[in-house]
């Protein structure tokens, strides 16, 4: 969090008996603008995004597009701005240039919360579950904005991740890393999003669990949900990708289908380790 605001300076206080750490970074809703109709173009078109957290830009003219039901994967070296690009798509970053369009609407001015209502589902890399709440309650909270009956969606999530059904009464914080990721993805699916964004869904899980998660992600895409994913395991991710983006220093370096990027000797040599 930036500390240019004097109210955010805690003057080195570490006393946990009077204050509690871990407040959110997101702005409270109600300050965003409105969506503007912008027909045509890909399903998700985040084009020419330029911006960063502070004075310096992290993203430079970065473009990401996803078609309906496709999987797009962002790969690149550490510090390339992969997660930042995704946060920009989700509205957690102030853009100085460029725009984000979803399903024929320009949503650049919307807050993250409003984007959820427009059909974006976001799974952060860390802190992506409610740890003290049960699996079932996590899913329920995912469906908070829905006023209709969401039990059938919950059944779909349980069908997709059968282990969650067995552990529905267990607090999400007590689950293993892989199971927790499943809860996180399930929670995002509860709003029935049109676009699911995953920030390194396989970070910190075993290779077997990783393959399992990728299989599930393909299954989700087959139901018509577009997927935008940042991945550290570039090779495996590109194998399932309809579209791959290699970012370097906040700018697009290579853009092609996943298979083509895997076949490109230049990409292989520089980013996939031979």
């Amino acid at each position, binding site marked *: 969090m930036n500390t240019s605001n004097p109210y*955010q300076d805690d003057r080195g206080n570490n006393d946990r008996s009077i*204050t509690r750490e871990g407040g959110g970074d997101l702005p409270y809703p109600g300050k965003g603008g409105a969506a503007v109709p912008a027909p045509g173009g890909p399903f998700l078109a985040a084009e020419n995004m330029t911006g960063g957290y502070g004075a310096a830009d992290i993203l430079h003219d970065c473009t990401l597009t996803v078609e309906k039901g496709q999987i797009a994967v962002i790969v690149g070296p550490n510090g390339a701005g992969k997660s930042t690009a995704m946060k920009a798509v989700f509205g957690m970053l102030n853009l100085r240039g460029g725009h984000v369009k979803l399903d024929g609407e320009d949503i650049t001015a919307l807050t993250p919360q409003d984007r959820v209502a427009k059909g974006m589902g976001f799974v952060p890399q860390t802190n992506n579950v409610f740890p003290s709440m049960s699996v079932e309650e996590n899913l329920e909270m995912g469906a908070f904005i829905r006023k209709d009956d969401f039990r059938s969606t919950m059944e779909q999530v349980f069908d997709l991740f059968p282990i969650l059904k067995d552990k529905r009464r267990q607090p999400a914080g007590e689950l293993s890393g892989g199971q927790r990721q499943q809860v996180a993805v399930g929670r995002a699916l509860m709003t029935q999003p049109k676009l699911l964004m995953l920030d390194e869904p396989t970070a910190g899980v075993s290779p077997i669990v990783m393959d399992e998660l990728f299989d599930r992600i393909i299954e989700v895409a087959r139901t018509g949900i577009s997927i935008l994913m940042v991945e550290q395991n570039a090779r495996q991710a590109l194998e399932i990708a309809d579209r791959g983006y290699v970012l370097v220093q906040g700018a697009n370096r290579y853009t092609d289908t996943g298979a083509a990027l895997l076949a490109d000797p230049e990409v292989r040599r520089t980013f996939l380790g031979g």
Partner: protein
Amino acid sequence: MDFLNAIVALLNFVVIPATAYGAQLALGALGVTLIYGILRFSNFAHGDTMALGTGFVILFTWWFQSMGLHFGPLPTALIALPFGIVVTILFVLGTDRAVYRFYRQQKAAPVILVIVSMGVMFIMNGLTRFVIGVEEIRFDDGARFVINAGAFKAATGLAEGLAFKSTQALTILTAVVVVAALFLFLNRTRTGKSMRAFSDNEDLALLSGINPEKVVAVTWMISAGLAVIAGTLYGLDKSFKAFNYFQLLLPIFASAIVGGLGNPLGAIAGGFLIAFSEVGFTYAWKKVATYVLPESLAPEGLAQLLSTDYKFAVSFAILIVVLLFKPTGLFRGKSV
């Protein structure tokens, strides 16, 4: 017979008063722990919210009494309680709107909110004294006892009397009902779950479409309600004195921290632990000891570990021991 007398004396002087006091502390600590869990700071104004709320209840009680309204054997304050709660909730929500909301929108560091709550505390403290005065006020009416010491002695033939004040019975009963209702609310209702979600992971709660302003408002309302109930029960049981509630802040915070800040179950356990320790350390055990021990071992002094003037030192000592050895509290709290 001596053994029975010892048990009755123990019940009369330790168990019953400590249970009632513990219930009052638990209700107060629940409010503190909810604010800490959801708004992420320790609300120093909680003690004075209790005082102010109880002040409103007393004003309503006097008004009802002047109209000749009575609640049979129960204290009139019980009818006045809902009115006092509503006025206090409005006052607290107004404070939130006028003071806290600005800092929330600035995403102010929690430590700044702590200091802000101190400012609110001073204002509330002054307001309470201004409105209702600094003198001791007794506002309990209706039946005094559920079990009368004299009648108990006559009925059982024991040397020791057992007194169970109606305010104590009322305290314990109300606490049970309120706590049960609170837990049902937090675990079963949509709003309650959204409060827990907000406390667990603020960003994810926002991403799920939970309205933070609503969560904050409901938290303030529950906390104010609990404060008024706790304050009124304390005032009925002992007596109302504006400054007493300010002093209650220490045992209340001790209860919340000992149980584990942010954990409602911990707040209740902490309340009773602090209450029983305070009463246990300051009770003169001579009487009970004389009944159970053989004559040669009977204590000569009062067998009182601490003078009652030092009762706050007990909660302070427990607080420090817990913070040194188990800073997250006995139950897993949200701190650290």
